[in-house]
C-alpha cells in the first residue's frame, strides 16, 4: 500500500516533480510558493535521480533556464507567484512560439502590482487569454487539493510533451499553503538521451550524421511562413480544445442552480453546496479542472437544466466571461468574488447566490 503523507500543496509539487523524473527545476523565492524550491533543496534530488535544482537570480533568468533545458528535450519546470509570473511571460511566449514543453506553477496571490501575498485567482485572464504577446495558449490545470498538486505535475508534463506546448499549474495561496493527505506518485526513471532523441526528435541534442540540424527558435521574419507557423499552432490549440477538456461535477444531477468554481474556490463552494442543500436549495458545483481548454460544452449543456449559474472566483469577475460565452445568453450568469487576498466563506457564497439568482 502506498504511504499516506501529510504535506503542503507546495511540498507535494516538489516531491511529485522528483518522482516524475523531472530533469530540472529553476526558481526564485516569492511568497506563497517558496516551499517548492525549499523542499527540492532539502531533498537534494541531484544525489538520487540526478535532477538539477537551481536558485536563479531572477524569475526572468529562471524561465530562460527552463527555455534552455526544454530546448534539449528535458523535463524542466519553474514555479512562482503572480508578480514573478508576470516577469516570466516573455519567456513563456517564446516557449509557446518555439513549441517547447515545460511545466510552470503559479501559486497565485492578490494583485495588481505587488498586491498582497494572500490567496487570489486574479491571474485567470493572464493565464488563459495569453498573458504574454502573440497568439498563443497555455494548457492550464487548476488543482483543488494537495493530491491534485502532486498529480498535475505528471499530467502537466504529459500534456506539455504531447502537444509541445508549455503547461501551467494554476494554484493559489490556499492550495499551496494548506496541508492535507496525499499519496505521492511512484518514482519514474528520468529519460535517457536515446529516449529523448526518439521521443523528441526536434530537441537539440547534437546533430547526428544522418540527421538534419535542429534549431529552436520562435523567430520567422517571412510573414508567409510565420502565418503558416501560427496556423499550425492554432490547429494544435483546436485539437487540445477537442480532446483535453477536464472537469468535475458535484451534486449537479438534480441541480436547479449551479456554482462554477475552480481551485480553492471550488473547495469552499463544495461546503456551500452542502449548506445550501441542508437549506433545501438544489445547488450543484461544476469545477473546471482545465481552465484552458475551458469546459464550455458541459456548461452549455447545463444551461438548459438550471435556472442560474454563479461563477465564484477570488477575483473581480474573469472566468465568468467564459461561462457567459459558453451559455450564450441561455441562462442568467452572475459572478461572486472577493478581492485583495480576502477569501470568501461558504455562507457568503450562499448569501450571494440568494441575492443574485434566487
Amino acid at each position, binding site marked *: 500500500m502506498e504511504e*499516506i503523507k*501529510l504535506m503542503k500543496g507546495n511540498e507535494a509539487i516538489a516531491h511529485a516533480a522528483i518522482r516524475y523524473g523531472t530533469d530540472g527545476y529553476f526558481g526564485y523565492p516569492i*511568497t*506563497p510558493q517558496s516551499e517548492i524550491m525549499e523542499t527540492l533543496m532539502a531533498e537534494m534530488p541531484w544525489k538520487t535521480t540526478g535532477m538539477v535544482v537551481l536558485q536563479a537570480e531572477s524569475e526572468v533568468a529562471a524561465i530562460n533556464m527552463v527555455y534552455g533545458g526544454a530546448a534539449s528535450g528535458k523535463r524542466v519546470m519553474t514555479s512562482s507567484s503572480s508578480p514573478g509570473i508576470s516577469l516570466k511571460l516573455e519567456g513563456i511566449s517564446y516557449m509557446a512560439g518555439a513549441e517547447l514543453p515545460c511545466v510552470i506553477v503559479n501559486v497565485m496571490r492578490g494583485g495588481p502590482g505587488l498586491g498582497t*501575498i*494572500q490567496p487570489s485567482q486574479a491571474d485567470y485572464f493572464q493565464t488563459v487569454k495569453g498573458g504574454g504577446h502573440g497568439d498563443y495558449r497555455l494548457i492550464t490545470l487548476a488543482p483543488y487539493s494537495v493530491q491534485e498538486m502532486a498529480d498535475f505535475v505528471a499530467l502537466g508534463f504529459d500534456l506539455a510533451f504531447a502537444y509541445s506546448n508549455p503547461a501551467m499549474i494554476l494554484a493559489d*495561496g*490556499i492550495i499551496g*499553503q*494548506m*496541508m*492535507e*493527505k496525499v499519496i505521492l506518485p511512484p518514482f519514474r526513471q528520468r529519460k535517457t538521451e536515446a529516449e529523448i532523441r526518439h521521443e523528441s526528435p526536434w530537441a537539440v541534442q547534437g546533430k547526428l550524421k544522418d540527421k538534419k540540424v535542429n534549431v529552436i527558435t520562435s523567430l520567422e521574419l517571412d510573414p508567409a511562413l510565420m502565418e503558416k507557423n501560427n496556423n499550425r499552432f492554432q490547429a494544435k490549440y483546436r485539437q487540445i480544445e477537442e480532446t483535453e477538456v477536464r472537469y468535475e461535477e458535484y451534486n449537479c444531477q438534480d441541480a436547479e442552480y449551479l456554482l462554477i468554481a475552480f481551485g*480553492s474556490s471550488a*473547495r*469552499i463552494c*463544495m*461546503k*456551500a453546496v*452542502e449548506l445550501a442543500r441542508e437549506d433545501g436549495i438544489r445547488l450543484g458545483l461544476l469545477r473546471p479542472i482545465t481552465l484552458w481548454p475551458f469546459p464550455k460544452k458541459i456548461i452549455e449543456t447545463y444551461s438548459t437544466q438550471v435556472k442560474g449559474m454563479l461563477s465564484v472566483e477570488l477575483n473581480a469577475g474573469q472566468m465568468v466571461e467564459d461561462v457567459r460565452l459558453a451559455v450564450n445568453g441561455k441562462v442568467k450568469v452572475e459572478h461572486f468574488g472577493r478581492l485583495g487576498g480576502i*477569501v470568501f*466563506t*461558504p*455562507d457568503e457564497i450562499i448569501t450571494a447566490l440568494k441575492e443574485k439568482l434566487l
Partner: protein
Amino acid sequence: MKQEIIIAGFGGQGVLSMGKILAYSGLMEGMEVSWMPSYGPEQRGGTANVTIILSDNPISSPILNEYDVAIILNQPSLDKFESKVKPGGFLIYDGYGIHGAIRRKDIHVYRVDAMDAATEMKNEKAFNMLILGGLLKVIPMVKLENVLKGLKKSLPERHHKLIPMNEVAIKKGMEIIREV
C-alpha cells in the same frame, strides 16, 4: 466525528506547530485532516492562526465561517474569534494573554495557565504542548499514543529526544485545565 478548530495567537507561540501535531495525530487515527495557516511577512511576532479540520469524511472547504473549538492565546485573537465559536462549542484560552472578559454564555469556556506552567517547567517551548494537553482533556479527539506518533512524524529526527518532554507537558496540560 468532525472537529473544526482554530488556534490563534502570536507568532512564536507555536500556534502553527501545535496545529501540525494535531493534524498528524488525526492522520494517525486514520481521519481526514486539513491544516490551513494564515501566512504573513512577519517572521517573528505578529499574529498567527491555523484552521485544522479532523473528520471521518472527506473535507470540503479548508476555510470556515465558524468553529467547534477556538484556542485563543492572545487578546487580538479573542476579539476576532470569540463570536465565531458555534453555539455549544468550546473556547480554550491561556489566562496570561487575555486581558478582557469572555462574553459568550452559550459556549463552554476553559482556561489553561500554560504560560505559568511553562515558566515553572523552565521550558518556554512546552507552552503549546500544555495547551494541546488541555484541549485533549476537554475533547479527547485523538488518543495520546497517536499524538506521540504524530509528534514523531512532524518533528525532524534530531528533535525526537524532545518527545518525552512533550509528553510530560501534554499530561501537565490535562491536569491544569479548568472550566470557567
